[in-house]
């Protein structure tokens, strides 16, 4: 069953919950190879997003909700992840502009647009130890699922699983973008915090579509 604008709202709420539950863990990860603020940044951002989305009119389209997510993240998160996630949701919003509901194809378009937004803004490639290492396999998995005529929920579940696996694969990498890139070999053995938060967001998306 195609996903409604309520699904986007649920996604936001569940994301806020996951980020809040994992705030300390994200801070810890970012302290290891960054500056220790990722959990705080994301938690501040998604708390604001929850509030803003709650103020939207009942008839807001999926695209409208996603746009509010984008602008709120841009104006509350800061750091590197703020503009990157902001761009991701902005592009996602544009990708589903004319949809009252999202079918599997639209979901894939949305995810791909988000990933492309992050890449165009941050110039990171897969293997650079960033959130792209979660998003790119997620999009790939979603596309593969769509080719198998998967439901929306199956597409999102595939994306979430792939994001989680992609995030875990950042452990042995040397970073080439973001703060962790300053550490050289010392980044090896640590997971990229942005890839973890990305996997959390995609898990939330899958969960609320079930």
């Amino acid at each position: 069953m195609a996903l409604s604008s309520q699904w986007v709202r649920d996604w936001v709420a569940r994301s806020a919950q996951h980020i809040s539950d994992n705030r300390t863990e994200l801070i810890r990860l970012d302290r290891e190879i960054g500056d220790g603020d990722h959990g705080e940044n994301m938690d501040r951002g998604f708390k604001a997003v929850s509030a803003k989305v709650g103020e939207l009119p009942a008839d807001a389209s999926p695209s409208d909700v996603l746009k509010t997510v984008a602008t709120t993240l841009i104006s509350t998160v800061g750091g590197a992840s703020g503009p990157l996630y902001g761009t991701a949701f902005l592009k996602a919003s544009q990708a589903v502009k004319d949809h009252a509901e999202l079918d599997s194809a639209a979901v894939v378009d949305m995810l791909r647009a988000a990933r492309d937004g992050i890449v165009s803004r941050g110039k990171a490639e897969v293997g650079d130890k960033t959130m792209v290492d979660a998003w790119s396999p997620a999009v790939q998995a979603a596309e593969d699922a769509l080719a198998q005529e998967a439901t929306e929920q199956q597409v999102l579940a595939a994306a979430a699983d792939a994001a989680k696996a992609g995030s875990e694969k950042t452990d042995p990498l040397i970073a080439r973008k973001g703060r962790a890139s300053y550490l050289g070999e010392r980044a090896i053995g640590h997971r990229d915090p942005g890839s973890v938060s990305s996997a959390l967001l995609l898990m939330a998306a899958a969960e609320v579509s079930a």
Partner: protein
Amino acid sequence: MKKIINDPSEVVAEALQGMALSHPELTVATDPDYIRRADAPVKGKVALVSGGGSGHEPLHGGFVGYGMLDAAVPGPVFTSPTPDPIVDATKAVDGGAGVLHIVKNYTGDVLNFETAADLALADGIEVRAVVTNDDVAVKDSLYTAGRRGVAGTVLVEKIAGASAQRGDDLDTVAGIAEKVNAQVRTMGMALTPCTVPHAGEPSFELAEDEYELGIGIHGEPGREKRAMEPADAIVDRMMTAVVEDLPFESGDNVLLLVNGMGGTPLVELYIAFRRAHAFLAERGITVTRSLVGNYTTSLEMQGFSVSVLRLDDELTQLWDAPVQTAALRWGR
């Protein structure tokens, strides 16, 4: 974690309130937060706006005033500000001659200032950006996010600020800022980590007989941990990296900045300055201007950085020009 704070999430807001109360010559906007000269916009003058995460005080709010910045935009501790306050500050200080953004090279700062510049431009304000990246600790910058902007940023702000104050146009001010950034190199070290208030735990761990060489200013770990050694040996290691990088050469006149990371006693900074000065003298490089103190900090971190800026007559004159800010003041 013990700090003189109330609520960790109110640290920046409350500090800004304190700053507003103690500096009537500044106007502090809240929601969104920025600090500007009370007399801005100065009509016809190029305006300088800088900003970035908090925790590096006096950078940048302490450098707002006559002859330096027109506004500073502080983000949360160690987190770049979002575009909104940058746009607001940019609009508030634009005197019609355009605005120069001075941005330290961190992904977050660059992206947020970029967005802000786009938005300000959409409102008809001419904005140029200079991205500082003086930190030689980051090697192989092709394979990283690029070199970090650290204490050399203060020198860019002072000298470009003097250029704007004497009436130079936006291209000229931006050109001078680029020139300072191109001629300055910095290297930092830490004896202790620092603790971000909302994180509550130290940013890295160091044994009692180790120091971190090549740290940035966000409590991030450096390039390597080394066994503790005397001040002179540490300074030589840092100065070698700095001097070889540009490279600085015999006959150069330079400004030497020894910058404390926040928790280092002044006596120690002077001891480091003494050796850095001798290191340069041994290579025929003359220190014609100097600055010693806490100018670009990492909260309570103990440690310091050395910055060397190659000077010519113009840069020297602009350095000497009057400046009247909370943290840097002379000639007025």
